[in-house]
Structures are given as C-alpha cells and as structure tokens.
C-alpha cells in the first residue's frame, strides 16, 4: 500500500490530518433511506493491521455502513478516506485502483451463479492479470480454495453447494488478489463451529503475518471477541460504544452489556392490557 498522498488542508478530515497508519477515516457519514437516517453521523478511524469488528442489532445499518466504505453507495453527507484518497470524491477511473487493493465478502456471498466456484475465484485474477498463463491462475485458485477448504468443490456451480460453502467460496474469491484491506459482512453466519474457528484463525493469520487490515461485521460474539482488536457497536445509526474488546466488556452502559451477553431487551410482559396496547397501537 502506498503512503497517503499529501493532501491540502481543505481535503483533510476535521478531526486532524490523516496519519500514515490510518487506512480508513470516516467523518460525519450520514445515509438516508426514504427520509430515515440509517447512518447518522458516524466518525471513526481504522489503523493498519487492525481487525475492526462492527456489531449491532439486525437492521441497524451495518451492511449499509459497509456499502459506503467500499464505495457502492455515496453517503448523503460526510466523507470517507481510504489509504489517503477520499473515495467519496474519486472518479470511477481512480477508484478502480483503490478497489484493486481490497477484497469484499458480501453478506449473501454474491458468487456469480453462471460460473463454477473455481471460475468465480479465477475471475478477478484473470481480469486484473490477463497475461498470466492458465496454469498459474489454476494454482492460485487452488491455493485460495484450499485456504477455505473448498478445493474439491471447484467444479461445482454455486447453486449446487450449501450456504456455508458459498460463504467460504466467496471468501476465497475476496482473497484472490491478496488484498491489503478485507471487508467481510457476516462471514461466519451459516458456518459450523469448526469453520468459524478456522475463519477466525485465517483472519488473524492474514492480519498478523501479511499486515492485512480487516473490517468485519458480525453477530457472533465469540468470534468477535476472538478476532477483534477494536470494536464498534452500532445502534440506530449511531456509534453506541467503541473500544478494544476489554473496554467493550467493561462498558458502563447496561444496554451494551445486555447486547454482548445476548440478554433479551425487555422483561417478559405480565400485563395483558399493555401488551395489547403495544401490538395494536393507535388502532385500538
């Protein structure tokens, strides 16, 4: 990865200049869907080699945040820098160079259904290195597939493999170009406990040995605390809690504690009248 390009004061974030270590800088990001503020003024930085875990209830905007970070959507307000380039302002052409450096694992896997698993992994390699002989591409594909234990399924179409296998194949594809920056949306959902541990170890290895920076969205608390070097807890589009795993565990807010322990949000209701009131709302 290149050192951040010198930028003029005007293009620097308000919270201070981008250091050589800052891979991602997010400033005041707001995303609005149909008048609803799904992301409401987020600010954070991700340092090189870090594994940032993003957590939060279902529908709180984790995937949406990820889509802003990888430039699939433009936030209504705010700015995002990756490796010192402000992606919220880059042209399509310039963005391609940034994108080459990152791998994305989508929540649904997003494998190409018309291609086999092997071709899915080979696609980014073939497209970005068109002069590689087929042999080399084959070996690279086998290496990536063996990382996720999918070598013997390379000839199958995505429709012929299970949900967890799709996730693993998609991870192999995300790693195809040896990215320096890895974005994962619920990588462990649908995997069995052994595979979860394997994924965690793979992520840790990538980050420790190859200096990969990872942003991982997850619901899996065990996994989150195992891999995360820093955590962000989202709630209603805002950052609820942020810190190292230890800081999150010791967070004073009882809501945060409840979330990470997986306790139900409210006590079981005794009162039948208030229950009816609740579900029938104003129509009553």
């Amino acid at each position, binding site marked *: 990865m290149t050192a951040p390009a010198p930028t003029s004061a005007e293009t620097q974030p308000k919270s201070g200049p981008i250091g050589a270590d800052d891979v991602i800088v997010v400033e005041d990001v707001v995303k609005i869907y149909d008048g609803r503020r799904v992301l409401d003024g987020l600010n954070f930085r991700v340092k090189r080699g870090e594994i940032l875990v993003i957590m939060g209830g279902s529908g709180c905007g984790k995937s949406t945040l990820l889509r802003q970070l*990888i430039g699939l959507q433009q936030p209504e307000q705010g700015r995002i820098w990756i490796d010192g380039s402000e992606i919220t302002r880059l042209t399509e052409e310039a963005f391609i160079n940034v*994108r080459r450096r990152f791998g994305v694992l*989508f929540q649904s896997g*997003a494998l190409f*259904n018309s291609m086999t698993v092997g071709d899915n992994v080979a696609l*980014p390699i073939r497209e*970005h290195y*068109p002069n590689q002989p087929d042999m080399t591409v084959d070996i690279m594909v086998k290496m990536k597939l063996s990382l996720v234990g999918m070598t013997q399924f390379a000839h199958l179409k995505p429709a012929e493999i299970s949900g967890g296998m799709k996730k693993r194949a998609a991870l192999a594809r995300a790693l195809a170009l040896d990215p320096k920056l890895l974005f994962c949306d619920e990588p462990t959902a649908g995997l069995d406990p052994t595979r979860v541990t394997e994924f965690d170890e793979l992520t840790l290895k990538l980050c420790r040995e190859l200096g990969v920076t990872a942003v991982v969205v997850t619901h899996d608390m065990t996994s989150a605390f195992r891999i995360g070097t820093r955590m962000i807890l989202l709630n209603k589009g805002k950052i609820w809690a942020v810190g190292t795993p230890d800081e999150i565990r010791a967070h004073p807010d009882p809501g945060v504690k409840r979330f990470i322990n997986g306790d139900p949000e409210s006590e079981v209701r005794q009162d039948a009248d208030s229950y009816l009131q609740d579900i029938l709302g104003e129509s009553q």
Partner: protein
Amino acid sequence: MPITLTRFFQHVTSWCWLFSNTLYWAFVSPFHGKKMRVNDLFRQMTLIGVRSLLIVFLVMFFMGLVLAMQSADTLEKVGGLSMVGGLVAAAVMREIGPMLTAIVLAGRCGAAITAELGTMRVAEELDALETMGLNPVHFLIVPRVLGMVIMAPCLTILGVFMAMYGGCLISVLFLDQDAFHYWQKSFEMLKLKDVYSGMIKSVAFGTLVSNIACYFGFIVEGGAEGVGKSTTQSVVTSIVMIIACDCVLTAFFYFI
C-alpha cells in the same frame, strides 16, 4: 400524475446515461486499451441469434402466408395476382420483418436479459463485480447489446426470405402462379431503399430492445418479485418503443 411524470423523466435520464455509458464502453474504450470481451460477445450472439432463429422463421412464415392471402383478395379484383410476391416482399422487408423480429427478440431475449441481470442485481452479483474493479457495463451490457444489434438484422433478413417463401407457397398452391415467376417478380419490385430502410430499422430496434432490457435489469430492487415486475416492464416498454420508433423512422424514410 406529476409523480408518474417525474418518475418517467427519471427513467428516461438514467436510461440515456446508461446508453451513453454503453456507447462509450463499446466504441471508445477499446481504443484506450480496454479489450472488447469477444468470447462473451460470441456467446450472446449464439444465445440471441441462433436460439431465436426457429421462432423468427415460424412467425415470419405465417406472416408470409397471411399477407399473401390478404393481398390476393384485393389484387384479384384488379387482375394483379402476379403482384402478390412483390407486395409481400416490400411489406415484409420495409415494415413487418424488422418489427416482428424485434418483437420476438423483446419477448424471447429481452425478457431473459432483464431477468438475468435483475437476478444478479438482487443477489449482489453486480455489486461484487464493481468491487472487483470490473465495470458491469463493460462486462455484461456491451456483449448483450452488441450481440443483439448484430443479430437483429441477420434474423430479419432470414425472416424476410421465410415470409417470401410463405407467400410463394400460397401463390403456387392456391393462386395458380408460377414459382419462378413469383420470385422474379418479388426481386424486381424490391427496391434498394426497401432493403436499407429495413436494415436500419432492425438495427435501431435491436439497440432499443437490448438497452431497455439491460436498463430494467439493472434497476431491479426488491427481490424475486422485483425481477418479475421489471421483466414485464421491460417487454412492454420494448414493444411500445419499437412501434414508436418504427413510426418515426417510417416518416423519416417517407419524407427523404
């Protein structure tokens, strides 16, 4: 009503944007070192051209039969039964051939393209392409559009022959005409302008159908239901646009 109108103009502007993007990736970027995806193009040409051939043949053959019978009815009264061939040829070449072929393409291939791209959109496959630094327009739309633009006139020409053959069958079997005479008369009456106006039309229709199909595939949202909705919209819009465009082009060729 104003909401529908704004929506309509939104569709038109984003369609134009996609269309200009397609033109750029098809004709400008190959000169900037972005190679055309030739394999994909040939695959699409097979899917669109070869697989539609039978339907186009069938439809145009029946059209030839119908046209011959309809015109015979009138021409018999003025003693011009030998003109049936020429009339069928001209009508099919100038008008019915390009239009019917395009409608078949809209129903058969346009719908398939919208459904395919729409499913890819819903499954985040298009997003995945983009994050890999691969432009979906270059990767998916250009081969489909070029494939249809190339195959539409080819199918039209073959279909025209099929219709003329249908007309010949009627003339020989029921109107006591000589087959050789039929073909001779047909080619005699066919003018060069008929041929090129027909070809221009079918290229225009192919462009319209493929671009509309890709556009409606790209804008799908809301899961499987959205794919179905968009596919219907794509076919309906294509057919309306084919006929509207036909009207404009016919007027153009009529007045020059």
